[in-house]
Each structure stands twice: as structure tokens, then as C-alpha cells.
């Protein structure tokens, strides 16, 4: 077991603090959004969802009615956890594409998160992308686009990328309609990446 003592660069630390403070101006919100799930072996139409958030990290997505399909382990759309002081060691990894790159390494080894990399727009104090590796649920990525609600650090669009295990239903059970016999030739979809996009329509803040 190693204990890493890293002298946290003041710039990275203060940047994160500023970002967190901006985010924390919103204690809670309710939002209507259009949820689109994009996985190679799934055809799910976009659906209207209700997104609720409460500080620091209580995030939920609900469909008023109907079936919801969400990646296992939930959509990690909240940056609250990542920005909690004292939970992560901060490593300044420079810049990429005009964005500051900051790596977060958990100080406790018992959590699920192994490493998280944030791409931050320093000028607007907004996190544009977060790539997080976990023990249980693989690596996922969060891409955030901001617009009207940028002042509150609330995105117009959030894209959550995740890993799937693939899917197969035995032919004898599914009894598909297959007049060309084409399905037999294709291999079952194996491990693949999927994405969930939330296009926010409106926020009710605090």
C-alpha cells in the first residue's frame, strides 16, 4: 500500500474550488429532459424524463410512465462527488484542446472510483468532460454542453458513455421473424460502448 503525498498545485486546487463553488450555487433543481439511449443492440425511442437533483449528490432520473432502461449503476451525471474536498488527490495534467486537464485519484481505496479525469474550461469554470474509471462498472465518460444555464453550471446537453456486456437471446426463445436467414450469419453483439444523452429542456432551480 502506498500513500501518495502530492503537493497540490495551487492553480489546480483553486480551479477546482472555483468550479465547485459555481456548481454549489444550485442547491437543487428539477429539469425536464429528453433522454436518448444509444446502444448498438437496442432500439429505444427518446423519452421525456424528469431529472431531480439535490446537493451534494442526490441525482435521479424518472419517467412519468413507461419502461426505463438505464446503464447499471446509474447515470453518474453529478460532479458533486468528484469535487468534494479531501476525497481526492489532485494532479494537474496540463492542457488539452484548450481545456485544463485535472486528474483525481481517490484517497480512500475502498470506493468504486479508481481514477477520474476532468476537462475544465478555465474561463467559464465549467467541466466539459469527465472520464472516470471504476472497479465494478468499467470506465465511463461524461460530456457536457452548456448554453442558457451556463451561469449555473447546468448543461443543455449531457452525454454519458458507458460499457455494455453485449446481449444475446437464444433463437429458440426469441423465435425472430427472419425471412432472409440473415441473423444466423451475424455474431451476437459482444461488449460495446453505449451512450445516454440528456437534452435538457428546462430547469427549475432551487
Amino acid at each position: 500500500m502506498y500513500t501518495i503525498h502530492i503537493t497540490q498545485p495551487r492553480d489546480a486546487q483553486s480551479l477546482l474550488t472555483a468550479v465547485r463553488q459555481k456548481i454549489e450555487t444550485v442547491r437543487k433543481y428539477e429539469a425536464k429532459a429528453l433522454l436518448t439511449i444509444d446502444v448498438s443492440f437496442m432500439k429505444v425511442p427518446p423519452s421525456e424524463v424528469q431529472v431531480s437533483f439535490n446537493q451534494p449528490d442526490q441525482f435521479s432520473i424518472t419517467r412519468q410512465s413507461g419502461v426505463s432502461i438505464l446503464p447499471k449503476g446509474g447515470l453518474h451525471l453529478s460532479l458533486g462527488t468528484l469535487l468534494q474536498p479531501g476525497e481526492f488527490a489532485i494532479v494537474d495534467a496540463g492542457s488539452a484542446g484548450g481545456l485544463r486537464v485535472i486528474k483525481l485519484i481517490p484517497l480512500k481505496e475502498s470506493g468504486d472510483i479508481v481514477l477520474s479525469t476532468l476537462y475544465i474550461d478555465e474561463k467559464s469554470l465549467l467541466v466539459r468532460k469527465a472520464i472516470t474509471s471504476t472497479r465494478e462498472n468499467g470506465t465511463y465518460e461524461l460530456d457536457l454542453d452548456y448554453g442558457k444555464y451556463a451561469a449555473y453550471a447546468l448543461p443543455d446537453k449531457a452525454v454519458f458513455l458507458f460499457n455494455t456486456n453485449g446481449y444475446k437471446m437464444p433463437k429458440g426463445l426469441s423465435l425472430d421473424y427472419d425471412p432472409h436467414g440473415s441473423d444466423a450469419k451475424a455474431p451476437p453483439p459482444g461488449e460495446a460502448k453505449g451512450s445516454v444523452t440528456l437534452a435538457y429542456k428546462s430547469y427549475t432551480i432551487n
Partner: protein
Amino acid sequence: MWPLLRIEIRKIFRKPRTYISFVAIAAMVWLIQLGLYADGESYIRFGMQSLSASFDLGGKILNGYLVCYIILQTFLMQVPLLIALVAGDMIAGEAGMGTLRLLLTKPAGRGELLGAKFGATFVYTVTLLIWMALLALAGSVLLFGAGDLMIMRNQEVDLLLSGDVLWRYMFAFAFAIVAMTTVASLAFFLSVWARNAIGPIVATVSIVIVLTILSTMDIPFFDRLKPYLFTTHMIGWKGFFYNPVPWRDIGVSAAILIGHILVFLGATWYVFKRKDILS
């Protein structure tokens, strides 16, 4: 031909055997509805195993639309038997009863009589499927409520929103009528050769079972045969639940089924016209 058709319909619906089909469908549908009502969640969990490894599934997955879909999928093999039960009896039954010879001494032509008999068989098929639609669809929606329909295909999962399901079922039942009419026309054809309905009924069901196995088996040798088997196309009703709906494929399947119907009926007419009635 209308008087003949009315008489043939009257005959079908006066025979006690006809009602076996309606009772059987009711029993099958209610059994499945009962089973799913009692323990549908574990059935769903089992069916969704592959998907729930990577996803959290929430909401009312077990709803009337899914129950109806499960019922239809379960009865792929059974409904043809119920169709054959009546269609196979149309000519063989008359021969066995001894009424065929009396019928054919009346002025109606043999072609006219065949037309009326097949027309009545078609009416029976439609009635049976409407009965099934009422029980399986309306009944399930009443019991379980409507909701989104999740279709688990071999290599794909389709989610159909609640408002997008009902029209698909309308088309699916319409297609099922064509599919079951194909079975009826086969049983009808076999009925010409026999003096007892058992033979045509068993033969029809056996043919459907064997061809369905060939249609669903994954053996490369049979892949070449599949597009030509009517059983491959009979499950075209499922296509209405795919996203997007493969309209062209379904259209071709329907045309192939109609082609089979015409061939079977044509063969029936040809044989019956020339047949010596010795029964």
C-alpha cells in the same frame, strides 16, 4: 353463392367441435394471464437476464401489451391445430358423414361448393382470431394495463412506447389472419383426399410442426430452404413490432402466403372437380 356460404357457415357453427377451438383459446389465454398475474415478475426477470447484466430496468415492464405478445408467441404452434380442426373437416367430414354425395347431387357446381366451404372456413378463421384478440389483447390490457412494450429479439432489444403499440397489434392480427388462412387452405386441400377428418387434421399439424422446426433451426443446409417455407413467413406478424417495421419483408411474406393459399386452393379445385364420389 351467398346462400351456399350462409349454409356452410351455419354448419360450422352448429357443430360442437367448432366450439372446442374457442374454449381452448380462452383456456390457454386465461392460463397464461393467470400465471403472469401471479408470478409474472420472476418470468420477466428470467427473460431479461442478458439485458439486466448491463442495465437497470425500471417501470411497468409487465403490462397488457407484453402479456399479449407472450400469449401470441406461445401459441404459434397451437392455433394452426385449431384451424385445421375445422378446415380439415370441411370435405372429409362430409364424406365421412355421407352427406357429400347428397350435396353434390344438388345443382350447385363443385367449384361453387368449394368456394362456399372455403369462404366459411375463412369466416371461422377470422372469428377465432378476433376472439383471440379480444381475450389476449383487450383482456390483458384490462388486467395488466397498457404500457411500453419491450421486445427481446435474438440480437436486439426493441422498446416500443405505449402509444406506438396498438396499431401494430391491429396489423399483426390482420397478418395472422393471412397466416392462419394459409394453414386452413392446406388442411382444406388435404381434406379432399380423405373420408375422415382425423387424417387431414393430423397431417396439417404435422406438416406445420416439421416445417416450423426447419424454419427456426440454425443448420446451414436448411437455410436454403427457409425462404420457400410458408412457416418462415407465418411469423411475419412479429415484424410489426420491430423498429423500424420491415414493411417490404412483411409485404413479401404476405404475398408468399397468399401465393400458397392460391396454390393450395387451386390444387383443391383441380382434384375435387375430377374426383369420383364413392363415399
